[in-house]
C-alpha cells in the first residue's frame, strides 16, 4: 500500500489559481437556490411570530384566521409539540440543554419566536391569514443585558433552571497571582462587543415533500445536509434511510446556516402531515429577527506586563450572551468557550486563568458565525495590549515581537493546552509591516491639511482551522467531527467524488477536483464533485470552521490514493510490469523510463469492469475502482496579519478605511485565487463587524433595526482594495500540508481597524483606545469626549 502522495508546494494541479467550474451556471442565472426549485402543487407557509420578548401566551385566537377562504391549515404546539434534542455528546460540564421547542409552548422568550405556522396557496395569502391571528400575552420582565439577567433575583427565562446562567466553567494554568504581583503594569478593561448577524445575501429557505413511497425529501439552505438528515430522523421519528436532504446552490452561510433551525423540522413534519409539498422562504425581517445572531460578549480582561512589554499573566471573565435558547447544535458556548480557549493567541504568555459564563437573555439565540468567539476574545486581548503599549511607550509591534512563539518552538502547546503545529509568526508580521509601510507611516504626522487624522493599525492572528474531533476538543467542544469521501472511477475512466462537504461559495467543486486530479493523475476535466445531496454524497459534517480544504481535501487524497493504487495494481498485471515502476499522468499510465509502454486510465478501467480475462483474478484483486475513506486530523493552526490605514474626521467621528493589507500563512494552498477570495470576503465581514454592524434591542427586548435600512453591512465604497500576500509553512500533520483559511480575518482585521483609530487619536491625551465594537460615529465621538465608556470594575 503506497504512502499517500506527498504534495509539496505548487504542482500540476495544486497551488493553481484555476477558474471555478461552478461559475458559468451561476453567471447565466441557471444555478438553482432553494426558492428557484419548482414542485407542482407546492403550498407556502408564513409563520405567526412572537412580538413580545418574554411573555406567557394567555389566549391564542385562530378562529378569525381559519375563516379566511384560502386558509388550508394552521399548526401550533398543540399539533406538533416536538422540540430539538441534541445528539451531540453532552459532555460539557454543566451544560443544560435549554433547547428550543419547534413551536412555542405556552411561553415566548424572544421577539420572532414561532407560535403558529399557516399553510396557504401563496406566501401573499399566508401573510394575510397571519394578520388575522390574535393573541393575548401576559408580559414578563425581559432582559437585554447579560449582567441584568445574571442577577440572583432576576426572573427565570427557563423555569427549569436555577438561574439564567446555563453554563459556567473556570480554568487556570501557571501561577497567575504571582505573575500579577510581580508585574510592572497591569491593564484592566471591560470590553463589550456588538451583536451582529452573518446576513448572507440569500436568507434561509426550506422546502419539503412527502412521497407516495413514504419517503421525505427536504431542500434547505443548510451548510450541513447530513447532520440535518440525522437530526430530522431523530426528532420526527422517520427512518433515516427514507429521508433525503438536498442543499441546492446556497447563497452564503458563514456558519449561520450550520445550525438546525425550527423551520427545518416544522416543514418536513407538515409535508408528512398533509401529504403535499410545502415551502417557506425567509424574508429579511425574519432573518434579522430569527436567524442565529453572534459576537456579543461582555469581557473583563486583565493583562500583566513587564516594562519591556513581556506579557506575564492574563485574567479573563468572558460572559457570552446566549440569547433565549441554546442554538442547536453549538449552543451559546460557541462564543465565550471558544474565546477563552483561544486566549493566548500567538503569544507565549504562561500564566492564564479564565472564567467562562454563558447567560440567557430575551433575544435571538447566539450561534456560529465566521471566527465564532475568537472575534470577541482576540479583540478584548488586543485592545488591552494596545493600551499597554501606549502606557509603556512601546509600539504594539514591539509587544508582538517580544511575546511571539518563535518558529523553532513548534509544535508549541499554549497555556490553554492548544497545540500549534507550525508557523513563522515573525516573518509573517514583517511581511505585513513592509507591505503596509507601517513603520514609516507611524513616523509621519497624524493630522492632514483638511483637518482629518490619519491612523495605521496592525493585528496578528492564529486561527484554529480544520475542525476535526481534536481541534474541536482543543477549543472546548468535544464533538466527533470527522468526514468521509467516496472516490469512484467508472468504466470510461471518469471520476466521481462523493463528498461530505458542501460548498456554499467556497468553490469546493473545483478545489476538491484539483486535489483528486493531482492524486489520481487524471485530467481535471474528467472529475465531477457531488456535494450537498445526501442521495449522492458521502456522510460528512458539512462545510464550516475552515475545515473543507483540509478535511475534505485530506479524505479525497486518501480515497483517491486507494483507487490509484488499485488502478496501478491492475495495470501492472495487464502491462506485465511492476506496479512500483508505473506512473500516471493526465490519464496515461506508463512505465517510468519508457513512456511508449503505456495504456490509458480508461483502458485499464474498462478492463477492470468488462474483461475478466485480462484483469487479475477476482479473488486476488477485487475488480472495483471505488474507495471511501474518513479523515480526522489533529488541529492545524493557520496564522497571518492585517494592517489597516484609516482617515478619521474628528469632528463627526466618521472613519474612512483607506488601505487594507492581509498576509496569510495557511500552509500549502490548493487554489490561491480561492484563498484570496476567502481573505477578501473575511476582511469585508470583519471590517463590517468592526465599523458598522450592530443589532440593537431596546430594554423591553424589541429589535430596533430589523431591516437592511438600519442594520448596515459594508458596501463597495466602505472597503478599499484588499491587498493579499501569502507565506507558506506547510502543516506537518495534514495531508498535502494544507491548513484552513476561511475565518482568518474575523480574528484580526477589526482589531487592526480599532488599532488604527487609537493611532489616529494618539494626538489626544488618553490614551484613547476603543473598548467596544462597532466603532461607528457615535462610539468614536463618545471615545473622544470620554462619555459612556464601558467602565471596568
Amino acid at each position, binding site marked *: 500500500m503506497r504512502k499517500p502522495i506527498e504534495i509539496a508546494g505548487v504542482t500540476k494541479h495544486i497551488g493553481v489559481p484555476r477558474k471555478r467550474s461552478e461559475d458559468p451556471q451561476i453567471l447565466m442565472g441557471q444555478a438553482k437556490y432553494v426558492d428557484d426549485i419548482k414542485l407542482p402543487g407546492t403550498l407556502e407557509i408564513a409563520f405567526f411570530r412572537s412580538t413580545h420578548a418574554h411573555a406567557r401566551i394567555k389566549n391564542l385566537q385562530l378562529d378569525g384566521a381559519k375563516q379566511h377562504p384560502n386558509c388550508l391549515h394552521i399548526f401550533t404546539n398543540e399539533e406538533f409539540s416536538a422540540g430539538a434534542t441534541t445528539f451531540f455528546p453532552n459532555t460539557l460540564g454543566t451544560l443544560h440543554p435549554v433547547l428550543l421547542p419547534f413551536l412555542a409552548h405556552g411561553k415566548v422568550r424572544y421577539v420572532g419566536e414561532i407560535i403558529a405556522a399557516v399553510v396557504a396557496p401563496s406566501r401573499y395569502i399566508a401573510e394575510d391569514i397571519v394578520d388575522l391571528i390574535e393573541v393575548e400575552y401576559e408580559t414578563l420582565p425581559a432582559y437585554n443585558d447579560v449582567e441584568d439577567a445574571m442577577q440572583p433575583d432576576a426572573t427565570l427565562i427557563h423555569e427549569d433552571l436555577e438561574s439564567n446562567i446555563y453554563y459556567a466553567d473556570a480554568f487556570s494554568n501557571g501561577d497567575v497571582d504571582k505573575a500579577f504581583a510581580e508585574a510592572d503594569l497591569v491593564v484592566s478593561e471591560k470590553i463589550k462587543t456588538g451583536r451582529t448577524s452573518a446576513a448572507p445575501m440569500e436568507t434561509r429557505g426550506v422546502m419539503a415533500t412527502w412521497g407516495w413511497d413514504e419517503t421525505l425529501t427536504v431542500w434547505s439552505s443548510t451548510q450541513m445536509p447530513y447532520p440535518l438528515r440525522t437530526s430530522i430522523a431523530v426528532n420526527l421519528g422517520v427512518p433515516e434511510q427514507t429521508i433525503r436532504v438536498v442543499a441546492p446552490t446556497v447563497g452564503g452561510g458563514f456558519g449561520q446556516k450550520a445550525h438546525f433551525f425550527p423551520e427545518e423540522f416544522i416543514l418536513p413534519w407538515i409535508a408528512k402531515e398533509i401529504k403535499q409539498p410545502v415551502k417557506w422562504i425567509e424574508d429579511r425581517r425574519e432573518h434579522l429577527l430569527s436567524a442565529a445572531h453572534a459576537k456579543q460578549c461582555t469581557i473583563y480582561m486583565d493583562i500583566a506586563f513587564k516594562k519591556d512589554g513581556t506579557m506575564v499573566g492574563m485574567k479573563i471573565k468572558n460572559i457570552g450572551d446566549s440569547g433565549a435558547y441554546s442554538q442547536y447544535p453549538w449552543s451559546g458556548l460557541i462564543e465565550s468557550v471558544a474565546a477563552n480557549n483561544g486566549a493566548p493567541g500567538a503569544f507565549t504568555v504562561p500564566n492564564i486563568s479564565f472564567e467562562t459564563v454563558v447567560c440567557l437573555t430575551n433575544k435571538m439565540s447566539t450561534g456560529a458565525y465566521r471566527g465564532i468567539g475568537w472575534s470577541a476574545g482576540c479583540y478584548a486581548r488586543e485592545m488591552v495590549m494596545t493600551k499597554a503599549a501606549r502606557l509603556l511607550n512601546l509600539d504594539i509591534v514591539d509587544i508582538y515581537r517580544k511575546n511571539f512563539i518563535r518558529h523553532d518552538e513548534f509544535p508549541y502547546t499554549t497555556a490553554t493546552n492548544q497545540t500549534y503545529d507550525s508557523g513563522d509568526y515573525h516573518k509573517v508580521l514583517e511581511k505585513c509591516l513592509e507591505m503596509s509601510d507601517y513603520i514609516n507611516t507611524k513616523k509621519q504626522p497624524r493630522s492632514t491639511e483638511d483637518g482629518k487624522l490619519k491612523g495605521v493599525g496592525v493585528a496578528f492572528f492564529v486561527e484554529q482551522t480544520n475542525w476535526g474531533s481534536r481541534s474541536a476538543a482543543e477549543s472546548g467542544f468535544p464533538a466527533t467531527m470527522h468526514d468521509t469521501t467516496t472516490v469512484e472511477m467508472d468504466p470510461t475512466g471518469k471520476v466521481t467524488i462523493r463528498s461530505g462537504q458542501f460548498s456554499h461559495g467556497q468553490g469546493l467543486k473545483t478545489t476538491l477536483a484539483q486535489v483528486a486530479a493531482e492524486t489520481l493523475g487524471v485530467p481535471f476535466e474528467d472529475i465531477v464533485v457531488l456535494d450537498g445531496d445526501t442521495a449522492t454524497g458521502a456522510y460528512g459534517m458539512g462545510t464550516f470552521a475552515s475545515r473543507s480544504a483540509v478535511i475534505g481535501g485530506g479524505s479525497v487524497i486518501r480515497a483517491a490514493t486507494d483507487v490509484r493504487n488499485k488502478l496501478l495494481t491492475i495495470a501492472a498485471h495487464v502491462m506485465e510490469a511492476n506496479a512500483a515502476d508505473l506512473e500516471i499522468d493526465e490519464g496515461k499510465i506508463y512505465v517510468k523510463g519508457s513512456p511508449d509502454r503505456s495504456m490509458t486510465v480508461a483502458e485499464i478501467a474498462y478492463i477492470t469492469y468488462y474483461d475478466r480475462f485480462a484483469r487479475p483474478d477476482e479473488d486476488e484483486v477485487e475488480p472495483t475502482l471505488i474507495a471511501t475513506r474518513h479523515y480526522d486530523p489533529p488541529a492545524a493552526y493557520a496564522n497571518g496579519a492585517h494592517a489597516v490605514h484609516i482617515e478619521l474626521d474628528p469632528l*463627526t467621528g466618521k472613519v474612512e478605511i483607506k488601505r487594507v493589507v492581509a498576509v496569510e500563512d495557511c500552509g500549502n494552498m490548493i487554489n490561491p485565487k480561492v484563498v484570496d477570495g476567502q481573505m477578501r470576503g473575511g476582511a469585508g465581514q470583519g471590517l463590517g463587524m468592526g465599523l*458598522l454592524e450592530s443589532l440593537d434591542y431596546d430594554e423591553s427586548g424589541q429589535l430596533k*433595526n430589523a431591516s437592511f*435600512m*438600519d442594520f448596515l453591512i*459594508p*458596501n463597495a465604497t466602505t472597503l478599499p482594495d484588499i491587498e493579499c500576500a501569502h507565506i507558506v509553512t506547510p502543516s506537518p500533520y495534514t495531508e498535502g500540508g494544507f491548513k484552513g483559511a476561511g475565518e482568518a480575518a474575523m480574528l484580526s482585521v477589526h482589531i487592526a481597524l480599532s488599532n488604527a483609530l487609537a493611532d489616529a487619536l494618539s494626538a489626544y491625551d488618553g490614551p484613547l483606545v476603543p473598548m467596544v465594537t462597532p466603532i*461607528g*460615529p*457615535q462610539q468614536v465621538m463618545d471615545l473622544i469626549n470620554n462619555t459612556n465608556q464601558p467602565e471596568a470594575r
Partner: protein
Amino acid sequence: MKPAIFDYFRATSLEHACELLSTHGDDAKILAGGQSLIAAMNYRLARPQVLIDISNIDNPNQITDETTGVRVKATTTQAFAEHDPVLRRRLPVLADAIRHIAHFQIRNKGTVGGSIVNADPASELPAMSLLLDAEYEIQSASNKQIMPAEDFFITYMTTALQSDEVLVSILFQEPPKNSGWGLHEVARRAGDFALVGSAAVIALDVDDKCSYARVVLFGVASTPVRAKEVEDAIVGQVCSNKFFEQAARKVSEVVDAESDVHVTDEYRGNVAEVLTIRALADALGRAKAAS
C-alpha cells in the same frame, strides 16, 4: 414580507389621477416611483386599499427653464433630473444633492415629487426645496394652488397635501447670479440616509459683504429647517471661515433632533454645527470664484 391586498388604477395623466383620487378619497394613495411606498407596503406597515399609479402617465419626465428658476414635473425621475443640463447649470446644488439620494438604481425610478411628498426630514429634496425657495404646484379635481415649500412640511412624513390632492410640479428658484453653494452630510455608507446634513447658498456684494444667505439643515428636526438666525448673523457681514464658526453656533435655535440606533440627538446637534461651517466655507469659496 409581501404587500397586503389593494386595488390598482393606472392614471394616464395627473388630471386623471385627481379624478381617481376624488372618487376613492382617503383609502387611495398615489404610486409614483414607489421607492419608499412599496418598501413600506412590503413591510406591511403601509396598507392603502387603492393605489393610483402615475408612473406611466404620458411624458412623466419634464424639466422646463423658467425666468425665476427651473420647473420640474413631479413625476420626473431623480436620475433624469440629476443629469438634466439646464438644472445642473442653473441649480448646481440641487444636482449635487440628488446624487446623494440612495443609489442610481433607486434614482432611476424614484421621482422628485415622490421624495418630497414622502417628506422624510433626513432626505435631500425637501431640504433643497427650502434652500431654493421652491413653490409647489398642487392640484385636486376641483382646484389648483401654489404653495411655498415652507408651508408644506408639517412633521415626520406628514405634509399639507390633502388626500384628494396631487403634487404636479416644483419650481426651484435660482439664487442670485454670483452666489456660491455648499452641501455637506454625514451618512454611514454611500447611499444611506443622512444622519445630519447642511446646505448653504451665499452671495457677496461689491465689497465682499454678504448680500444673500440661505442655510438649511436636514436630519435634525421633524422637517427640514431653515436656520434663519444663522442667515441673519451673516447677511451684511464680511465673511470668513473663522466668522462662520461663530455664526454656525446659532443652528441650535432650530435643531430639535431625535436619537436612533445610529447616533444620539446630541451628536446631531453638534455635527449640524460642524457641517454648517463646512457648507458655508464651500459656498464662500464658490461665491468668490463666481464674482
